């Protein structure tokens, strides 16, 4: 489980004729958190979803450019998308645990990838749940449905689920925007903890959240990457006027 850096080169995403992301080149250094911000429809979620080729599912979606993970360009036509996705975990805005028990939610992925030993699976379940600070809350009811948990717990379960298949990179699409402030704080703590082991890309609408959790911030507008810099600098002294306008709430 080693974090890996991620690089995009002139990445464009099209939905039919419409170009949703325009030639974006970005570096995501390993073990850092990068926040993608920008108004709705600016292409940040589309960009995020193209990083594990999840946009392939949408008919009419098309990618141009390159995405490098280590020395592999995952936009190559020959890429094995299925095994690629194992290396890139993903968390959604709305918690989406499987309709299975808490234990199964976690064990399902590793078992599919070949781990059959019950003891080993038990260990993976415990480690993953500990990493997301959920273990103490659920250890006595692992056989209950994942849907019986609260929203915040469900979201941490989903994060644990994606950690269980040992990804290098974590993509988070507004992971806390459907949660209450306490759960949000927990998720943010978790992100700070997880960046020791993973490269994390997070889309957020919450400016304070971006400032709190990320090392670098990228501002997207109308499909363009407007500015990408250290979070500190982006929020105190951005070099583009539109970044400043957005961050200080003058539009968007």
């Amino acid at each position, binding site marked *: 489980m080693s974090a890996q850096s991620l690089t995009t080169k002139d990445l464009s995403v099209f939905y039919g004729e419409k170009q949703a992301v325009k030639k974006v080149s970005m570096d995501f250094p390993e073990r850092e958190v990068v926040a993608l911000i920008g108004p709705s429809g600016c292409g940040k979620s589309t960009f995020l979803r193209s990083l*594990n080729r*999840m946009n392939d*599912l949408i*008919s009419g979606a098309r990618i141009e450019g390159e995405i490098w993970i280590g020395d592999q360009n995952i936009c190559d036509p020959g890429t094995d998308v*299925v*095994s*690629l*996705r*194992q*290396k*890139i*975990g*993903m968390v*959604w805005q*709305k918690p*989406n645990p*499987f*309709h*299975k*028990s808490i234990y*199964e939610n976690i064990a*399902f*992925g590793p078992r*599919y*990838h070949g781990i059959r030993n019950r003891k080993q699976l038990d260990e993976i379940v415990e480690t993953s749940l500990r990493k997301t600070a959920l273990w103490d809350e659920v250890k006595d009811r692992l*056989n*209950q*449905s994942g*849907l*019986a948990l609260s929203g915040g717990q469900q979201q941490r379960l*989903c994060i644990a*689920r*994606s950690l269980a*298949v040992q990804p290098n990179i974590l993509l988070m699409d507004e992971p806390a925007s459907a949660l209450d402030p306490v759960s949000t704080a927990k998720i943010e703590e978790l992100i700070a903890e997880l960046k020791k082991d993973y490269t994390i890309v997070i889309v957020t609408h919450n400016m304070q959240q971006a400032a709190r959790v990320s090392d670098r911030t990228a501002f997207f507008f109308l499909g363009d990457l407007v500015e990408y810099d250290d979070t500190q600098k982006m929020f105190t002294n951005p070099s583009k006027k539109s970044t400043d306008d957005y961050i200080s709430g003058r539009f968007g």
Partner: protein
Amino acid sequence: MRAKTVDRIATAVIVCVAGFIILLLAALLGYLLVRGLGHISFDFLTSAPQALKAGGGIGPQLFNSVFLLVLTMIITVPLGIGAGIYMSEYAKDNKLTAFIRLIVEVLSSFPSIVIGLFGLLVIVNTFGFGYSLLSGALALTIFNLPMMVRLTEQSLRSVPKEQKEAGLALGLSRWKTITSVMIPVALPSIVTGSILAAGRVFGEAAALLFTAGMSSPRLDFSNWNPLSPTSPLNPMRPAETLAVHIWKINSEGLAPDAPEIAAGASAVLVIMVLLFNLGARWLGRVVYRKLTASK
């Protein structure tokens, strides 16, 4: 004030309509049961019918109905679920699939007597399956398949997109995502729908008149060799079902107690369909709990 009046009138109308439907159903059910229940006994349910004397039963017909249903479902369920998975998950959105969808819609509202005629011409005569349980099961498959396909397709489509994406994001193959993540979520509605479709099949008569036939050979219920012509399990024997039997004794029954037999058989049919429906709800819930560990 005006909005309130309109609201009150609308509510009253809707309540009246609902009440009327309930009344109608209750009257129908009540009539069938009151007329039929008195005639139902263990003997009636198990003994063979009599052509000319009073006191005949519906044993073979009841068995035929159930057996034919099982045969039909064995053919329909895998085909219907397979096609449904294809239509919802694999088929591209183009003119061809739109056309297939249209055909499925048309087929699902096809008059069953026409399916019966088709069965007679193609399955019974051309394929040479004769009047047999197998012919009947194939005709009912044509009758039932469109509903199964649509049902499966709709159940899978109603599974939240995030469930599918979550499966794929873990590095699962598309097939594994469908079978292990999406089907468990969709299964309760697939099970419920299948059993409701089974109820429809159970009560079907027109499609069977010319395919499963209107006669039942003498059955030997101690002979369980499926290849023997007197065995109840032989799929190549003609088999009159309960619904067909009701139609027959009502139109040409010679037994003196034909009206009572028809009434009793109708009540049995209604009760069976009712049991199917209740069973469907129960099974759907149980399966969902089993698969999802929910309370």
